């Protein structure tokens, strides 16, 4: 019993290393290599040239990181503002054409982004929204909103109207009801949707490239030229940085969520 559980643990760790650790290791090696060529298994010489280029010097890395995060966070905030009322009406109202609304909201998951973004680009050109952060933020909404709505709808589905009715009978108005009863319940859904929204927005290349027209420079925009033929060492360094930023953002969100619940708990504890 004990032996087999040990065995499964070891196998799991090995598999984990193979599928997750190894690619990262290769990226790390590649980023610090200097002329790593076939048939060498390990690079012949090492240099921190690529990291130097990425982190300091003439590159726009930190500006791009800033833009990436600004866009991802704004997109997610707008998504929350749109998704919560949308989820409420989808769940609570007996709409006749509910399937139509759902189809429209979830369409971006099914339709290739390239199709939609061409039309968006044309419209934004007329509106003067191309090459602006605002334009990119708006364009990022279409691939991210469906996930947000989906997550919040699922949370809303598990909240019976009785809870809100109960709060009403205790004298809670619309805002109090939302803040004290609905929000704590749908928070996990919002958090799940927000993680997806942030990750999807961070990794957008095509939409950012077309709508931003190269003027709105996010991390993927910097990264792509190096992958598709430039310098693999620099591409590796950017990839690691990108992964790091994404992981840090998620951890940060997780911590914020935990703090939210802790605040609720301690508030109740002290009371």
């Amino acid at each position, binding site marked *: 019993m004990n032996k087999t559980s040990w065995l499964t643990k070891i196998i799991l760790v090995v598999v984990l290393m193979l599928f997750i650790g190894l690619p990262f290791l290769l990226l790390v090696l590649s980023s610090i290599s200097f002329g790593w060529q076939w048939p060498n298994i390990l690079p012949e010489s090492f240099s921190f040239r690529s990291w130097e280029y990425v982190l300091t010097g003439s590159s726009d890395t930190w500006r791009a990181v800033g833009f990436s995060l600004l866009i991802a966070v704004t997109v997610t905030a707008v998504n929350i503002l749109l998704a919560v009322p949308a989820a409420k009406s989808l769940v609570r109202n007996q709409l006749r054409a509910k399937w139509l609304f759902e189809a429209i909201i979830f369409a971006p998951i099914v339709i290739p982004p390239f199709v939609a973004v061409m039309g968006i680009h044309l419209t934004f050109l007329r509106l003067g929204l191309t090459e602006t952060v605002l334009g990119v933020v708006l364009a990022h909404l279409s691939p991210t909103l469906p996930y947000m709505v989906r997550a919040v709808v699922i949370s809303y589905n598990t909240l019976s109207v009785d809870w809100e009715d109960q709060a009403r*009978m205790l*004298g809670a108005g619309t805002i109090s009801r939302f803040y004290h009863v609905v929000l704590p319940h749908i928070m996990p859904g919002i958090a799940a949707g927000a993680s997806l929204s942030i990750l999807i927005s961070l990794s957008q290349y095509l939409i950012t490239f077309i709508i931003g027209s190269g003027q709105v420079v996010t991390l993927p925009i910097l990264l792509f030229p190096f992958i598709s033929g430039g310098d693999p060492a620099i591409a590796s360094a950017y990839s690691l940085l990108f992964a790091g930023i994404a992981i840090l953002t998620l951890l940060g969100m997780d911590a914020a969520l935990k703090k939210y619940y802790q605040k609720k708990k301690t508030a109740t504890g002290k009371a």
Partner: protein
Amino acid sequence: MNDLRIINIEKKYNSRLPKNDSAFTLQPIGLTIKEGEFFSLLGPSGCGKTTLLKLVAGLIRADGGEIRMDDFDLTAVPPEDRRFAMVFQKSLLFPHMTVEENVAFGLKMQKVSKKMRLDQARNMLEHVGLQGFGFRHPDELSGGQQQRVALARALVAHPRLLLMDEPFSALDPSLREDMRELLRQIQKEFRVTVLFVTHDREEAFYLSDRIGVMSEGELLQVGTAQNLRDHPDTTKVAAFLGLKNLIEGTVTNGYFSSKLEEFEIPVPHLIEEGSCFLILRPEAIQLMPEGVIPGADAMHIRGEIQQLIFNHGFYIGKLKTANHQLECSFSSQQAKNMAAGQMVDLMISLNDIHIVKK
């Protein structure tokens, strides 16, 4: 006076599918509930009692009629401003708040200061027998305790009317009795007006000052428990109150004759002629002492005992007469000398029989 007046309130639910003609309609209902009264709506599930309750609460918008209290028209007032409270079938305690905070929620909505509202919440928890439970979270309580907290939470803000929607039906029977007792006590203590919905007639009989019997969206009869039991207006009411021994027949010339031509008895002339039902309450049917001939003021019943069933300290006897199946009750003492298959002579005083219109 803070009487609650329900004036011709009505509600129609249109079925969405045109084929489905079971669209539910709550017939216009008029009712006055006095301040401090415990009023129960009794009826089978789906009879509209919960709909009526939610109309009073304001959680459902009425199609017509008025809800008044203290001579103010509350019909257009949203539920959160009516100063009513409600206890649902499920306790619906907010899971992310402690018991104390749950109880204090209503006061928090009224912007009562934190110290005051928590003091009052603790005080109210003591009244429902849960002192010291304030810091716990709802999921750490049993079902009965949760429902006590829900009761405390409803009462803490001194509502003008307490609405209860089958609050004990999810609890097991012994707990339900404890809760009934607690509610009765607390209702007396706080003199709160209660509108209580239930399908359990024992519960309604035990708790209520007055009961309204509902069926299929109609309020059939309103009265005290005893009043309803002794003088049901219709067979529907009688049937729902669990009255046994309904015998179909007609009244002509001051005589009731049963459809199956077994019983014929004189009735007071006040009773209208036409088809009707005779009700013989099981507890009013007496064993005829030997050698006694029933007088003109009693009805004689002869039948064969088919079954004797022990029930709460007495026996229910299933009796087969010439054309009817009757139920009567015997004391343990009487049942000792009886056996299935035996013929017995019974009688019932004409004062104890009741005739209702069909």
